[in-house]
């Protein structure tokens, strides 16, 4: 007998060990997310995937699916909270979308479109963060990091290198690079690494590739992140 839980009124089948997110994706349902990626260990930091499970808010990407659960994801309440959390990510860093070469291909932006975010709502923090352009092929603009740790996990779990780490605490969190100088060119990161390509924002960029696809013709210019992400996440092994 297959086990099921209810997601927004629909019965979702799942296997033991699956999270709510995994089961939802397998069944073709999008739950907004930024720090989750099917290829890497769930992390649970962005809180965009927060869903109401039997009255309690849980991260769908880490919380196990269980028989008889009632999960609410697409409610006005959940989506309002998600919008606020996304706005927090925007004001915490320096996200000047019009001048960012990731514009249109950025998941943070894609999620913001999806959630119908039209302003930043909160006060901007305008932190001072340097750019690391030391690597011949790769650029990091720390201003756009949302501390999702996807680069950290990709480097550890797939590249076997451990190039990145997240350091500090509270609002002073920062992404650091594992090298003696602390600079990217001194690290083991290469352009072919998975970690180079995983960033959901414009924080990690590949040099010499900007604007090959013009703005206006990019991924989220024509497709909503729910479509794109369902296609990509469910094709993962």
């Amino acid at each position: 007998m297959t086990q099921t839980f209810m997601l927004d009124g629909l019965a979702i089948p799942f296997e033991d060990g699956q999270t709510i997110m995994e089961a939802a994706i397998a069944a073709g349902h999008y739950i907004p997310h930024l720090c989750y990626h099917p290829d890497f260990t769930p992390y649970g930091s962005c809180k965009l995937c927060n869903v109401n499970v039997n009255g309690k808010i849980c991260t769908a990407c880490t919380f196990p699916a269980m028989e008889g659960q009632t999960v609410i994801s697409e409610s006005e309440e959940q989506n309002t909270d998600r919008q606020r959390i996304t706005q927090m990510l925007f004001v915490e860093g320096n996200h000047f979308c019009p001048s960012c070469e990731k514009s249109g291909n950025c998941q943070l932006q894609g999620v913001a479109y999806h959630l119908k975010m039209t302003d930043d709502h909160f006060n901007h923090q305008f932190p001072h963060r340097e750019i690391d352009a030391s690597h011949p092929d790769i650029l990091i603009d720390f201003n756009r990091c949302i501390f999702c740790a996807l680069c950290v996990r990709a480097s550890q779990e797939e590249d076997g290198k451990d190039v990145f780490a997240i350091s500090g605490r509270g609002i002073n969190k920062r992404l650091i690079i594992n090298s003696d100088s602390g600079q990217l060119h001194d690290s083991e990161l290469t352009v072919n690494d998975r970690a180079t390509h995983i960033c959901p924002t414009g924080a990690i960029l590949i040099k010499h590739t900007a604007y090959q696809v013009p703005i206006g013709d990019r991924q989220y210019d024509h497709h909503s992140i729910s479509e794109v992400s369902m296609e990509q996440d469910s094709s993962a092994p």
Partner: protein
Amino acid sequence: MNDFIVQLLEANGYRKTRLLAILRAIQATYFHIPKEAITLLSRLLGLPVSHIISVVDFYSFFHSTPRGQYDILFSDSITDHMQDKQNLMNYFSHQCQVGIGQVRKDGRVSLDNTACTGMCDQGPAALINGYAVPRLDRPKIDLIAKLIEQELPLAEWPETIFQVDDLIWKTGLLLNSRLEPGESLLAADARGLNATLNEIDQSKLRGRGGAGFKTALKWRLCASEPEQERFVVCNADEGEPGTFKDRVLLNRYADWLIEGMTLASLLIKSQQGFLYLRGEYLHLFEPLQAKLAERRRNGLLGDNILGKGWSFDIEICLGAGSYICGEESALIESLEGRSGIARNRPPYPVTEGYLNKPTIVDNVETFIAAAHIAIQGGNWFAAQGTEQSSGTKILSISGDTPQPGIYEVPFGTPISAILEDCLAEDVLGVQVGGPSGTFISNREFHRRLAFEDLPSGGSFIIFNRQRDILEIVRNFTHFFADESCGFCTPCRVGTILLSEQIDKLYDGYGSVGDIVALQELGHLLKTNSHCGLGQTAANPMLNTLARYPAIYQSKIKFPHFGPGFNLDEALQAARKIAHRDDSEAHLSQSGD
């Protein structure tokens, strides 16, 4: 440095889990964690440089640039402020010629703030090179300034400077009890271990750290895990502002605590325990080590305890300045030598805790209660308290009372009776359970201390009518923002936004919209944060807003709109340059 670090690593058995202890020793010797030290540690421990940097960055007692040889941190608890902290800190700054947040040019002395140091009953307090200095006043500061100028090592300073008192005003069920070393273990053995766990069950003991999980149930769950290696962890992090009862228990009743941990080890079949001691209680480290050694000598710890073939030992691990490390899974991360970031749940520590093995984490008071229950039986304990909250609770009472200190009261006691006990008068409100708990107004003193009504880990701060609610809320909210681990978005960003909003109100630039925004933000933090810190960070604001809307109202300067700053005031510098201050040089804003 090479030799120093190699020796240090040898002393710590090259264990990665000992990273905090290793870094503490480096910080104490070099007044910071030098870059070369990080490179060396990385090589010798086989840890990435970034791992070590992230730990250094996380804990507030570690620094990547040098602090002074005498590093002074003033406790920033609201109670310290109520005891004239700010003036004394300014005085110190003047006497030692060192700015707040700065290191003096000659590198001899540095001065800064730190979160509540657990000395609220004898504040204002500071830490000097990690050692607690309670009851600061001008003469004491003059003396300290002199000793610093003489470059006298801390060990040669008069002991009175570091004298911390145990102020116990009221004892009850627990503190009136007696316990001979080993007595509870023998009692448990005589009764049978399973029967002893049943007694704890019958006592209805619930965890004393605040959350109130049933202790017997937690221990049973852990004991029933198939994994054979299990751990007993005592949570002596005590970071909730206004709490200091564990400090007194650790100082005066260490024997009872160690006994309780040993008892737990028998019941869950564990051979290794950890006492996670908050860094602010450095002064208790040596005495506790001595106590452990004494018990080892007396056959109460180590191999073959009491000749019964039991084996259990305890290692003390010191924190390094981080409130979040009191959260049990963050505490476990810290024990493993990492930053204190709360884990995803499930799995819970009872199934995957320290090194992913089954682990029980309990408060100091919980272990002590369990030891006495093993001797006196479950009914003895359950006879006091209420239906869902048996026994007594040890409170740390501070703030506006002539008798701050420790009070043991039965659960179910009305707040009014507690206020009478400590002779508090003219009370405006009480923060029960610390900033993460509930702020009650003087119309609620009939309410009771109990899990059914007002739960508490032990913090009880009294405020009289002279106090400014917004100032209290501001202090607490900044505390949470400073202590957020920053892992999850709502808490990392939300606590900062909350602090900014409250500062804006406090400074008199609030609008009606700001109050709505505060409420909305508070709710977002409560429901969406990853762990208890973020979930409770807005409590001081939400609690007081519900009870004193008029006070918030009165802070609103601009009822119709809310500029983030006062334009007229911002033009002050321009007026100075232009040498004019006539009415034409001033702007009026709507609402003035």
